[in-house]
């Protein structure tokens, strides 16, 4: 219906390889981008600061992880630890007087170095064993942060982020922090879209599908797996730093616990492995649906439509949430991205079932 593609032709191959050759896709993206840019003027501070902002940062985190899990096929159950390294590195650098921009860079490098180190150890193992290895990383990093006062500032301590600015703009105001998070999420999305089309991205996909076969066609699995861990950890570290500076504005070890790692994996899986739109949708689902459900259930209870014990009332949102995740994964194992794709294709071939040309 909306997808009109008659009259779209290309005279050069690079135009034919454009990201969005279909006009309808272009205007959809334009609408989303305009809405994202206008959000500070449309949303109240509450919605902007506690819904939109974390959504963007967690989407960036999901994109970082899906590069590793979706594209390169390497399971990682310790990604919160990677982000923790980024957060702690940046905060210490900033407190030391390093400008925020360089603190972000330092966060990325530190995460990438440690992430790649564990990645290298994990290179010899695959599948469930890799899960165990990355879990080990999670617990090791947690333990180190908790037990080295130089890092955590002492047990149960909270490190506040020092006042800082990005490109001379102070990060004090919520709008600035929102735009910074938006810029990072968009940058990552664009990076991810293009990585998929480079030889690096194709090499990762080849390794994901079968690393023996990839080796046979001349891809060095060791090098590319390491590069995948490195890249993913780098952007994960920067995202961790942004999470600390833009959203929490403080760091404690609990913010990057094991449950956060699991939540990240859930975001990747619910969104759809290796998909960009899935990264945003997955993060949004895992982050926002519980809140929406809680509000909905308590709203229903308050208005008298729902008469259950207050005990059940507290658990009802969680039950529905769990059922939703199971439901989505049963209904479409490839995640929300696939559901979006199905809807898009439904309209793409409208009014037929298959393409007619």
């Amino acid at each position: 219906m909306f997808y009109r593609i008659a009259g779209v032709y290309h005279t050069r191959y690079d135009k034919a390889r454009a990201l969005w050759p279909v006009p309808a896709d272009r205007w959809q993206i334009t609408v989303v981008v305009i809405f994202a840019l206008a959000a500070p003027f449309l949303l109240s501070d509450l919605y902007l600061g506690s819904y939109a902002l974390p959504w963007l940062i967690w989407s960036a985190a999901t994109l970082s992880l899906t590069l590793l899990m979706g594209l390169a096929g390497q399971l990682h159950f310790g990604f919160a630890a990677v982000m923790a390294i980024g957060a702690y590195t940046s905060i210490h650098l900033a407190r030391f007087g390093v400008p925020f921009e360089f603190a972000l860079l330092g966060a990325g490098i530190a995460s990438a170095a440690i992430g790649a180190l564990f990645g290298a150890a994990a290179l010899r193992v695959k599948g469930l064993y890799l899960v165990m290895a990355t879990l080990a990383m999670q617990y090791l990093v947690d333990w180190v942060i908790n037990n080295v006062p130089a890092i955590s500032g002492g047990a149960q301590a909270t490190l506040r982020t020092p006042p800082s600015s990005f490109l001379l703009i102070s990060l004090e105001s919520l709008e600035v922090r929102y735009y910074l998070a938006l810029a990072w999420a968009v940058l990552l999305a664009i990076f991810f879209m293009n990585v998929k089309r480079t030889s690096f991205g194709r090499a990762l996909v080849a390794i994901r599908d079968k690393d023996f076969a990839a080796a046979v066609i001349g891809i060095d699995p060791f090098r590319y797996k390491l590069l995948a861990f490195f890249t993913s950890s780098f952007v994960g570290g920067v995202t961790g730093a942004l999470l600390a500076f833009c959203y929490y504005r403080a760091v404690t070890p609990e913010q990057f616990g094991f449950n956060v790692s699991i939540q990240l994996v859930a975001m990747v899986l619910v969104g759809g492995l290796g998909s960009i739109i899935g990264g945003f949708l997955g993060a949004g689902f895992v982050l926002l649906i519980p809140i929406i459900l809680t509000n909905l259930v308590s709203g229903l209870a308050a208005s008298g439509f729902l008469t259950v014990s207050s005990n059940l009332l507290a658990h009802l949102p969680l039950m529905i949430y769990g059922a939703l995740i199971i439901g989505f994964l049963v209904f479409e194992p490839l995640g929300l991205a696939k559901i979006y794709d199905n809807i898009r294709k439904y309209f793409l071939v409208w009014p037929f079932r298959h393409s007619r040309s």
Partner: protein
Amino acid sequence: MQHDPFKNGSDTFVHANWQDNDHLITVLASNAREQATAIAMRERDQGIWQEYNWAQYLEHVVGFAAGLDEHGVKPGDIVLILGDNRPNLYFSMLGTICLRAIPSPAYPDTPPQELFDQLRRERVRVAIVEDQEQVDKLLGLRETYPGLELIIYDDPRGLDGTAIPGTVSFSAVLARGREKLKAEPDLHKALISRPNVHDVAILLHSSGTTGTPKGIPLKHGHVLSGVRNAAAAGYFHKGEIHMAYLPIAWVGDFTFSIAAALELSFTINIPEAQETALHDLREIAPTLYFSSPRAWSGMLTRIQVGIAESTPFKRWLYERCIDFAVKVERGRLKGKKPSLYQRFILKCGEFLIYGPVKDQLGLSRVERAYTAGEAIGEDVFLFFRALGLNLRQFYGQTENCALAIAQSSEDVSLTGVGRPFPGVEVKLSDNGEIVLRGDNIFDGYYNDVEATEKTLKDGWLHTGDAGQIEKDGQIVVLGRVSEIVHTAANVRYIPTYIENRLKFSRFIKDVCVIGADKEYLSAILCIDIDAVGQWAQENGTSYTSYAELSQSPAVYDLTHSLITDLNTILPAGQAIERFVNLHKQFDPDDGEMTRTRKLRRDVIDQRYAAIIDAIYAGKGNINFEAPITYETGQTGVIARALTIRSLVKRSD
């Protein structure tokens, strides 16, 4: 035979109003001068569109002409053009014209024997062909026709590095021509001004439904005045986007893709291959689209099959929208204006269904859609008009550049073909034949005085079509005068008229009605494998092949009901009483049809004599031994059991 303004050696000066230098090449040169960078041609190659602007167009044409000159092509030479639509073949045709030689295109799938006849008849010395396949075909013919001195090929694939004497690549000729142009700066201008409006621009051929094809020379003046007449009446606009996918040997392609394209600076788009034409059509989304009624009907079948497979909601919505639009369109053809409410629903439908369907077909930008060649089915015509395409009918023959009569937006109707173009006169001869006069009417057949005298009388072209002129000036074509046939009971009927009515059903691909000097009419049907196959799937009829499907009793019931419906609207005595579903489709390769898919009745009568005898002997089935020719050239026989059905119980 070039530049002979005096007809047949007599001293009557014909076309006194033509300006000597008003020919295709001057038109091309003025395009190249005035809009040098505008895109003149696009060809899809390896998935992307290669563009040529008008300056490049002219440069290729003149360069090739200079190269051809070097190879000794003389004015009046007939040059064979053989292949699918390719920019280089269009450049070759115009390059040939530049030298006042005459391009003579042939269909790429012409069998060698027919090609041989054409070569010998027209004493062809030079052939310009598309690819290795055609080169091989001509090399074979050269053994029996040594007069063929030079074969120029466009696509070097499979020929590169082989030095076959007497063959040269298009690019080599072009390179040689360019060198010569560089050496002689005046040559460019000389070549451009060499042709004359009275020169023959192209030698086309009649389809040869009866006997050998006749050569039909059209001069620059003919095609240009034809195109100008059409443009004056608003049938073509300047700068149309046009898809050049119809065979170059067909008159329409020359008038649309060369004459009109030059005169009205079209952008011509050439598909990558015949197989990708539909896909490429969607990429380009032309503004002008011409197709035969058969192709329109094929398109409708494709949509209907697609909808039948679609999801229930989409199908429901589609049916609601289309039914509504067809109803409104039916009213509109009767002169009823759609009400405000109907216009509102049509707007919604445009967004929901009509627009997307047109988009899927690549017709969303078409403003002028035409059909010609034979009668178009009511369903097909109404459907595409209901979609919002201003589909209109054309009437013309090769002899008048295919531009003679057309429907304007106001007088669209199913029965008539419209009014003559400005500059074309139409009247009916005494025996009810449509005769035409105008500047776009040719001056006589190639080397065939007898046929010319029969067709051209006092400047009036005798079309051979029986017709009538309505009160409002609309012309109605009834059928071929020569095709009026009498049964043994002396009932007059026109087989094509009945056949076309049957072919309007999507289930029937071809049909041959038999009845000349017989007691009653009968029919040989060829089902449409796509539509019937899909129908069979839905109705649980299993089949493995065309032959098996055609003989299935369920399919017989289906065709039976179609003929029963037809019989109710046919006049008394013209009802089809018996029919058979043929085990194969009629095929030009078997000689059963012409290349333009018109039936060759004598071939069918002879080949299927056994079936026809069985029909009139009243048998219920026949074991038919079908002769077949394998690709290797061997022949064999396949026995097929065919059922014959009766619709009417005869008392005797």
